[in-house]
């Protein structure tokens, strides 16, 4: 039993921390963007990713033959936690899901075209799985891919493609074999985001940022840009989630919110009395801090299971996501309870406590218990795989 990083891991964590402090840039690192701070969606943030690439921090866990260092995934976890603690863009999508899938299943052309660009942060991806009829039921994608001469013609619609308005390439699941069972009829494609047949429509959200829906009209994709084997799309999507154990979503933004709240409570007053002396506030803070420690414990549990290299830590990951996202919302809720009426002042105004950080976060975190596998999906996974209960839907 050991709750500390190994000396080598700690050295890397210190190195990253030092580098991030030295390279602090408020334009790149904006905690008020909450979950959207992980995106490299502006020129400044893309430039920052290139600096990360120069540090050699992209693709650390990749095989050496593809430019990686073959080091343990836990270093990517350490990196991503540090990045998200500083509200900087994170690694994950390109290096993780797409890079690792291409390494395992991509043809030579795709490997050569994309892997070096991922390592040098020259390409940003959007991921298109969700559709109007494929939310939690992810395998129910209906985007139609018809075989045509030399490639495929795609027609239909994707939902919730967060990065569609700035990405260079689109990683898309589509139905190539409608007659097969739903899990076996999907394939993965790579499409340039500026394809004239794609129409990106912005969807404003209750948070500050927007997401997108994307319409496909006769989008031609050459054969070479079908990733892996036809009909293996869903299997590759699932496998990527298992492979990408360490960078799924980070705890730091939540523990940072708890820290920011505590710091504020220490200084704030109510009716000229220190707020930290109010019994109701003390109770709320005690429970928030305690539950944040439990979230950390569940994250430790998940990382240790991932490090063991055995079975994918599906159960640990589901428990972590379920607990942590629920807590994330509760921290925002109770932070506003502590601020009282001042909590209603919209984010970004000096008059609001902590410039409305929690007013904004209260809205922005709404989606955390939905995106990336809803709480209910996580509970189904835990019920069946951990507790061994029968299928319940």
């Amino acid at each position, binding site marked *: 039993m050991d709750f500390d990083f190994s000396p080598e891991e700690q050295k890397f964590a210190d190195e990253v921390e030092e580098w991030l402090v030295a390279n602090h840039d408020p334009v790149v690192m904006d905690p008020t963007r909450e979950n959207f701070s992980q995106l490299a969606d502006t020129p400044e943030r893309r430039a920052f990713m290139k600096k990360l690439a120069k540090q050699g921090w992209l693709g650390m866990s990749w095989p050496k033959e593809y430019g990686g260092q073959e080091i343990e995934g836990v270093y990517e976890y350490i990196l991503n936690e540090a990045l998200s603690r500083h509200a900087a863009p994170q690694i994950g999508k390109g290096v993780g899901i797409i890079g690792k899938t291409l390494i395992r299943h991509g043809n030579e052309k795709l490997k050569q075209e994309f892997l070096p660009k991922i390592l040098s942060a020259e390409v940003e991806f959007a991921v298109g799985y969700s559709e109007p009829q494929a939310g939690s039921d992810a395998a129910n994608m209906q985007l139609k891919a018809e075989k045509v001469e030399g490639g495929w013609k795609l027609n239909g619609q994707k939902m919730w493609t967060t990065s569609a308005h700035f990405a260079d390439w689109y990683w898309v699941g589509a139905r190539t074999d409608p007659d097969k069972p739903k899990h076996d009829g999907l394939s993965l494609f790579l499409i340039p985001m500026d394809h004239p047949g794609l129409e990106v429509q912005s969807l404003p959200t209750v948070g500050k940022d927007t997401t997108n829906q994307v319409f496909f009209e006769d989008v031609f994709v050459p054969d070479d840009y079908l990733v892996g084997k036809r009909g293996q799309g869903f299997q590759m999507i699932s496998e990527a989630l298992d492979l990408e154990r360490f960078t799924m979503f980070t705890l730091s933004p939540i523990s940072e919110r708890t820290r920011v709240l*505590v710091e504020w409570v220490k200084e704030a007053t109510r009716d000229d009395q220190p707020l930290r002396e109010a019994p109701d506030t*003390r109770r709320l803070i005690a429970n928030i801090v305690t539950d944040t420690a439990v979230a950390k414990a569940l994250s*430790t*549990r998940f990382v240790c299971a991932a490090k063991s290299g055995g079975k994918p830590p599906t159960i*640990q990951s589901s*428990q972590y996501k379920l607990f942590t996202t629920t807590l994330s919302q509760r921290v925002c809720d109770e932070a506003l309870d502590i601020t009282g009426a001042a909590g209603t002042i919209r984010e970004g105004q000096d008059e609001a406590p902590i410039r409305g950080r929690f007013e904004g976060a209260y809205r922005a975190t709404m989606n955390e218990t939905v995106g990336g596998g809803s709480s209910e999906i996580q509970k189904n996974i835990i019920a069946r795989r951990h507790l061994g209960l029968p299928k319940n839907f």
Partner: protein
Amino acid sequence: MDLDLSEEQQMIKDMTRGLLEEHCPVDVVREMEDDPTGYPAPLWKQMGEAGLIGVLIPEDRGGSGQTLVEAALIYEEIGRALAPTPHFVSGVLSAGLLLEGGSEEQQARWLPEIASGQAVLTPAWLEPDRGFGEAGVQLAAKAEGDDLVLSGVKRHVNYAAAADRLIVLARSDEGVELVLVDPRAEGVSLTQVRSQSGEAHYRVDLQDVRVAGSERIGRPGQGWELFERVLQRGIVLLAAQAIGGADRALEITVEYAKVRKQFDKPLGAFQALAHYMSDASTRIDGGRVLVHEAAWNDAQGRSIARFAPMAKLFACNTYKDATRMCCQVWGGVAFTLEYDAQLFFRRAKEMQLSWWDTRTLEERVAADVLDR
């Protein structure tokens, strides 16, 4: 980072589980409820021989000199088995007080016997209508020559009838004192008060009980400081016990949910119920890691001023909530004494209210977070 148990830790855990399964099946647990002694002699003897009682007592005092981590593993098993024993009051608190503040003579006299199980000691702390803090200790200790004369009332004194000595928290002009008192001494009377869990609890009335000054543990007025320090470590073990209880309660409930059918489906095939159990398992598994983290930090010599109350706060709330949920899944039968779910349900609430309750623990966490 690594959450695996060492071979020796795994051995301690397995051995404890085996021992409790053999000597403390659930019918023994039921039999001991409201029993004046409150624990089965054969179980206690076995625990002593296996070195479990003295887990935190150094080897040169007859114990096995383990860290809080090993002790937490034992307590998780005690929690699973619902084992009624004076381990906590004797092997953890009394032994801890003697180790922290006892004289050479007191340590030599009591620690080996505590470790073997031959002697049982129990603190007499709480008083009617008083709280968990230092101000709650008002039982009078009057100095008369070299003696202390104790008068007042204590409540929630566990296993007092079986105890060789009480460690009475009393208030003198100097502050709080810890005094070893023979429960059979003149002026001491014990009255069993039945508790929610059925554990052997006593009200202790002390009327002009004269004790030699040499029976004081620690310096005059040092009692509260010692008691707080020892209890702070101890509650990590209660947190482990709560996690063990919650885990076992969930386990029997999940098994039941696989076989009990309604509407031609097992209960576990209803999301409404399955999701309750998924939530509980998440809290239990997370709570266990938090408890281990607290114990591990203590074993590393780091402060657990925040970890310890967080661990008990979360674990006991989880135990309480999980057992209520379990009873809901069992349905009507959980309401009957015949079924075991209620055994966990009652103990969970009692644990949450004992040895620093929710409010006290919240305040301790808040103080560490906000006042430093």
